[in-house]
């Protein structure tokens, strides 16, 4: 991948990947930072990127791993007790249905959320989701089925279960 090819790839996919990662992790600023860092690594390791069948999947996976790494680090008890260093959960003024969707996604198990986002937002076929997540297709289908059902319940008008 030469400079012009990379620039075109970066320009065309940055916003899309940020949106996808936002849906996966629920924090848009964090999503943008992780996608940004993933592209730096993509250029740094562009030989690996050349060998990748789907460069966009390579960047998405890298960004997602970065984000998950941050989550886990925080979950291990290192969440700041200091409110002055805690970013607001919702930094943007999002529309109500979007906020509800993100809140609902955050309540799903990570594997179900990942399957739903990759399949329905990233528009990947089940086979590609299986390849990207490293699990059998049957597992992806099961996760999609359970995820859809859970999402429907969480977003039903009377669920009231969309709080973070």
């Amino acid at each position, binding site marked *: 991948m030469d*400079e012009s090819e*990379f*620039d075109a790839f*970066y*320009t065309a996919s*940055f*916003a*899309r990947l*940020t*949106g996808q990662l*936002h*849906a996966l992790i629920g924090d*848009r*600023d964090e999503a*943008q*930072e992780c*996608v*940004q860092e993933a*592209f*730096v*690594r*993509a*250029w*740094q390791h562009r030989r690996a990127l050349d060998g990748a069948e789907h460069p966009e999947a390579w960047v998405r996976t890298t960004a997602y791993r*970065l984000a998950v*790494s*941050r989550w*886990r*680090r*925080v979950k*291990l008890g*290192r*969440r*700041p*007790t*200091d*409110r*002055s*260093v*805690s*970013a607001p959960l919702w930094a*943007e003024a*999002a529309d*109500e*249905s*979007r906020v*509800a*969707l993100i809140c*609902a*996604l955050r309540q799903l198990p990570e594997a179900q959320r990942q399957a*739903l*986002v990759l399949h*329905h*937002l990233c528009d990947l076929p089940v086979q590609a989701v299986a390849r990207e997540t490293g699990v059998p297709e049957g597992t992806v289908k099961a996760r999609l089925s359970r995820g*859809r059902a859970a*999402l*429907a319940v969480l*977003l039903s*008008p009377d669920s009231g279960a*969309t709080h973070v």
Partner: protein
Amino acid sequence: MSDRDPLEQLARFGTGGPVTPLPPAEVRRRGDRRRVRRTAVSAVAGVVAVLAVAVPAGLYAAHDSGIPPVPPSASTSARPTTIPDDFPLDRASGYLEGATKIGPSREAGMEYPLPCGRTGIESRPAADQLRFEMQGEEFVDRRELRTFDNQATASAVMAEIEKSVHACPLERSGSGREQAWTPLRAETGLATYSFSRTVQPMGGSIYQYTRVGRAILTVVWSGEGTTPEGARRDIGELSRITTAIAPEMCIWSDAGCAERPSDGATGGSTSPDLVFGPYGVNGLTLGMSAAEVRETGAASAVQGSAHDGWKEGCLAVDYTFTGDDEPGDVNGRISPEQGLEQLVATRDMRTPNGVGIGSTRSEVEAGFAHLVGAGDVLSSPAGDGSWAYEITLTDGRVSRITLELPRQDCAI
């Protein structure tokens, strides 16, 4: 709430608004910069390997750093600077199960950012360097040993690092987030300087630099969840690593390991305990509950009812660690709702950029890049507005500095 099909909503999720990516050229530049570092290190290792076969060690010791060689001098000819390949840089590394270990070798590349783009450990050419890196799932433990031509150079590097941290305590990261550089207190019994780099809302590194003679050991913990208070907690672990490795560095000290920190390796700046800000002081952090404040041991929290006009339930903070105020002085306030909402600097405290009681207006203006207000009350708010310095001047000099949350529940 929308009653649309959730899967349809998901499919139409889109980008969620405008994004602000770096220019493509900047992304490539950053990627290239990392590649160059790794390539340079590999090339140096190759050169060293060839020279090791062809040239006696004493002849190439000054040329194996991968940087322009320093002319040999009489003072260095008899003092070895080469690091043995088997130097135990990986000591005290068994604590992280399942980690990927790289080195010790001359091939594991790493970067050492310093505030405001300054150079620190790289400000002087090294005679030799060895690296070890341990990558866990959530963080990285990096160690590097560099030797310099002489002790004065190594001391100058330490001074440059310390000066950088104090000169630029707050800055914007490339993505626009605020990052803070905060000195840390660490006891190693050696000439050590420690600090943290934390980026809101989470992430960063803890650095510990230790000089023994002509050599400097760097230990860095980087993790996505590093916070200022986490750094204070973890710095002891870095000291444990440093003190496990440092005895082997005595070969680069003319005085052997009898050398003490008082030999001028680090400057005489404000004690880390007395650095006021950016988020608090000596473990006290804005937003802490009364219990958390007491737990630090740095302050007591007493009922504020004696202070007329305070909201009911507000507590007064009284520092226990500074000798510059009287017991019972009010050094801050704790609100029942938002926790520690204000801290007041005592006369012996200084902000990370060196401003304290008695500083002049020009020193304040030079020290804070973003000042708001006019007259004798100035404010330097954090980028996200979550806290601020409030600086009061009397007759042209600073008479009061506070760290405050934006809303003051307990104010009179």
